[in-house]
Each structure stands twice: as C-alpha cells, then as structure tokens.
C-alpha cells in the first residue's frame, strides 16, 4: 500500500517538475530538455527492438529521418495543414517504410539483421542526398511553416515560442512513451520477450514469430517517426544529417549505457549522453572519441548498463529477495 502511495507521490512530483521546468531553468535548458525528450523516445523505440525482441538494428535513424522528412514535406506542400496531422503524416511515412522493409527483414536475425539495416540506412541517406528535387540534398528542407496546435473549438496555441513548444513536445513524447510502456505490459509484450529468449518455443506454443517481429518492427518505426517528426518541428529543419549512421548509433549508445531490456534504461541513457555531450562539447570537439570510448568502457565493464548495475548491486546487498525475478526482463 505504501509503495503505491509513494509511486503516486513520485509521479506527481515528476509532473510538477516538468510543468515548472521552463520557469525554473530558463530558455537554454528548456531546449536542451526537448532534445533529450526526442532522443529518449527514439531510444525507447529502438529498445523495443533490441531489448524486448532481440533485434539489433544499425539503421534505426532511417525511421527517425523519414518521419522528419514526412512532416517537413507535408507542411511545405499542403497548405493549411494543422499540427497533429502533420506529425501523424511523419509517423505514417515511417510506418510505410517499415511495412515495405518488414517482409524482408523479419526473415533474418542477429548479425544479418544488423548489417541489412546498416545498408538500408545508408541507402536512405544516399537517397536523401541524391534526390535533390524532393529532399533538398545536403541543405535539407528548412523554413517550412509551423502551424498552431489547435483542436477545433477547444484550444489553439501558437507553438513557436520555445516554452509552448516545450509543453507540446513533452505531452506528445510523454504520450508516445506511455503507449510503448503499455504495449510492453500486454500479453503481446510477453510474446515479444519470448521471441527474444527462445523463438522456437514461441513457435511451438502456436504464436507466429515472423508476424510478431513484423508488428514490433512497425511499431518501433512508428514511434521513431514521431520522434523524428518532433525533431524536424523543433529545428524547423530536416537534413540528410538526420539519416546518417551516427544518428543510428545514438540510440544504441543510449540504450547500452542506460541498460538494455529495461524500459527506463534508454531514457536514463539519453539523459546521461545529453549531459556528457553538453559537458564535452564545451571542453573538446572530439565527440566521436568520447562516444566511442564510452561504448567500449560500458561494454567491457558494465555490459548491462546503469539499470543493470543498480539491479546487480541491489541483489548483492539484499540477498534475501528473490534474485531471479528482477532479471527476467533484462538479459
């Protein structure tokens, strides 16, 4: 009972902090937080593949980028499009890409899956650079109109001021995170974990492994698309940089640092990376070096990430509580 009350108190406190965050920390840190939130959703959608279904993708940025391009193109070409449909179009274009790829990719797993995505991700990157007429090449698409957030008859807010954009982004990204969280708690989420741990047994139990993978894949694509769409709105610019291979490595780094297979791990990892990037970009320009070293150190010393580290420490100190129960989700 007390645990439940404590949980509610914590959630309320978090909501309060989020609500007053722009007032407390000012403009610069508000924008930083929006970036963090975008990458948190991106990483969580990635972790849906890696942590929950055991599929490592080196090309998750293509859904992120395509989501961004979808929204930017829609806003540029469709007059008077309102905000939520624009985000929806971004997400739908990522879903479409996922649907096109999934018949091919659900047949492979492991290394082949990872490499296939590296190649497709690079293909999308090259296409974005080459199809200059549509995507604007290296310059990308910028300066598209950003509509007001409006639900007819209820509200109409101009989201151009950073503070308003913050609330819009937090609500949208928070809702997306909640939806992913909900998905992992459904029976379908259990099947997902089963596919990761023992695909053959799931097959014998009568569940369809390739179809399960396909659904997870498309869901992950959809939410990466949402993240990319908000990113495009936030920058008012989407360029081929959002599709390159470093954007694909970002969620991998964040997920590995935070803890693979735990829902909140990637969010924690995104926060840690954001802080590290913020600190290192002030000191040095060698962001690649820092990210590379972090990856190596994390894999060698704390392969389960921060969440895994906390869990194993907990088990060491509280040896009485059932040790295996916690690790069920994380491996």
């Amino acid at each position, binding site marked *: 009972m007390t645990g439940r009350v404590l949980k509610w108190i914590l959630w309320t406190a978090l909501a309060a902090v989020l609500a007053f965050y722009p007032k407390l920390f000012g403009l610069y840190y508000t924008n930083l937080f929006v970036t963090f939130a975008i990458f948190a959703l991106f990483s969580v959608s990635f972790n849906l593949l890696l942590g929950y279904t055991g599929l490592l993708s080196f090309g998750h940025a293509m859904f992120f980028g395509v989501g961004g391009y979808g929204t930017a193109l829609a806003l540029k070409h469709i007059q008077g499009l309102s905000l939520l449909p624009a985000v929806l179009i971004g997400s739908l274009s990522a879903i479409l890409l996922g649907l096109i790829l999934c018949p*091919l990719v659900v047949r*492979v797993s*492991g290394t*082949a899956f990872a490499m296939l995505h590296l190649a497709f991700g690079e293909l999308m990157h090259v296409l974005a650079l080459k199809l200059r007429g549509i995507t604007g090449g290296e310059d990308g698409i910028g300066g598209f109109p950003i509509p007001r957030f409006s639900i007819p008859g209820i509200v109409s807010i101009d989201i151009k001021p950073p503070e308003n954009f913050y609330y819009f982004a937090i609500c949208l990204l928070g809702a997306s995170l909640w939806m992913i969280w909900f998905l992992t708690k459904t029976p379908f989420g259990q099947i997902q974990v089963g596919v990761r741990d023992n695909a053959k047994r799931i097959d014998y139990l009568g569940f369809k492994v390739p179809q399960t993978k396909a659904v997870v894949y498309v869901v992950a694509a959809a939410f990466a698309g949402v993240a990319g769409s908000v990113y495009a709105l936030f920058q008012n610019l989407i360029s081929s940089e959002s599709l390159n291979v470093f954007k694909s490595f970002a969620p991998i780094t964040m997920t590995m640092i935070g803890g693979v297979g735990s829902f909140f791990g990637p969010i924690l990892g995104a926060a840690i990376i954001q802080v590290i990037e913020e600190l290192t970009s002030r000191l040095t320009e*060698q962001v690649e070096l820092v990210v*590379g070293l972090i*990856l*190596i150190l994390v*894999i060698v010393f704390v392969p389960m990430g921060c969440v895994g580290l906390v869990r194993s420490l907990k088990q060491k100190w509280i040896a009485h509580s059932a040790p295996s129960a916690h690790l069920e989700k994380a491996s």
Partner: protein
Amino acid sequence: MDQTTAMYVAQGIHGLAYGMILFLVASGLNIIFGMMGILNLAHASFFMLSAYFCYQFLSMTGSFWASLLLAPVATAVFGILLERFLLRRVHGLGHMAELILTVGVSLVILAGVKIFWGTESLPVKIPSFLSGLVPIAGMDYPVYRLFIIAMALLVLAMMALLLYKTRLGKIVRAAVSDADMVNALGINMPLVFMLVFGVGTWLAGVAGVAIAPILMVFPGLADQVGMDAFVVVVTGGLGSLSGAFMVSIIFGLLSSYGVQFVSSLAPVLMFAFMAVVLAIKPTGFFGERE
C-alpha cells in the same frame, strides 16, 4: 581499336581493380567471421588506418615498397591488440556486445586519425614505373590497376596455400566447423583466434595501402569503402570466401559502369542488388549461417 571499346575496357579494368580491393577487405572480414562468429565493424577503420600508416611510412622512408610491407603489419598489430585486450573480454556476452564494441573501436580510430593527421585529404605518391599506361595488344592499360589486380590474386593464392597446405590452415578449417572441439583436442584456440584476427586485419591493411594512391587518404575512407565491403560480405553470404569473391567483382564492375551510365544513382545500384539477392535468399549467395 576504336574509342568506345577502349573506354569500356578501361572502365572494366577500374571496376576489376576496385572489386579486388573490396575482396581483400571482405575476405578479411569473412575469415574473422567464419572463425570467430564476430562481424568486425571496425574492420573498415583498420583499412583506413593502414592507408594513413602508408602515408606516414612513405613520408618517413620515401619508399612505397617499404610502406606496402610495413603498413599492413602495423595495422595487424593493432588488430591483435583489439582481439587480445577487448574482444576476448566480452566474448561471453554474446554477439550484440561484440558488434557494439567494434562500433566503439571504429569511432575511436576515426577520432584518433583526425587528431593525428587532420581532416584534409593526403596524397600518396606511387613509384614512377607503377603510374602511367602500358600498351598491351593495341590498347593502353593503367599499370597501377593491373598491379592491384595482380597483387590481390597473389595474396589470394597465398591465403589458399596457407589454408589448404599447412598445419595451421588445417587447424583453422577445423576451428571454423567446431572451435570448442579443436580446443578440447589440445590446440591453443585463443592463440589461433588472435592470429586469425591478425591475418584478417592484415588483409584489410593491404587493401588500405592499395587504395591510398587512388582515392587519397581521408577520414571518410572507412565509410566509403567499408560500407561497400560490408554489403559484399552480407550479399555473398557471411563466412563464404567464394561468395565474397564473386560479389566483389560484380560490385566493382557495377560501380565503375554505374558511374558511367547512371552516375547519380550509382551508389544505389549496389544496395538495390543486395536487396534483390537478400529478398530471394536471406543468407546471401553462399551463406549458410546467420
């Protein structure tokens, strides 16, 4: 011989030379993968590192041949260090950890190269008798491309001899099918792994030196050629040398003729080819395992 045919043949030679370089990189990847099950994503970075070593040795000694010998060996030393001190530690954690670790290593190499040599393109000069053209049967061929093709075939022949005629080769072939069993028979497998990793990175190093005079040395080298090499390995089938050879040649020709006929879409051709192959056979041409 008329102008058009000469152009086609010249493009063909360029394509073959590029295909051979791709094959050198891809065969190193394949040997490591076949033996240890590790897809070394830092492989392309070693390839680039070797090109930089070549530039460095060349500016120090002034001899292309010395760099051709030394740069791949220096690269192999780095490869061996990576295997011994990093990969071996995470071997128990599964393939995901290894893949991500090699990504980290490739980022560190990229950053290191930028720190030591800067971001500009560095030229590598070849000896005068390797540059220029040689007339054969009424046509002129670029000597350096022919040299690359010959060198790659020589390396390939050496690898074949090593694999099929020596005791070490026998051990390696046995280890590809069952490493644990070979280990149980009293062969020091960790040492063999280390050697194989060294040979794999050495092959990447040879390719790196071979490409340095053609493309110049710059930090994007790993991305440009490395991505092609990974695509070759996946399309040919992971762990299959003959598959890698075939696909390397196809890709080399695709890229050189592609630039000529559909220049803006040339980079897409390879990926399209890969997508078609994988849609029909997900394990690649000759691949049996994932």
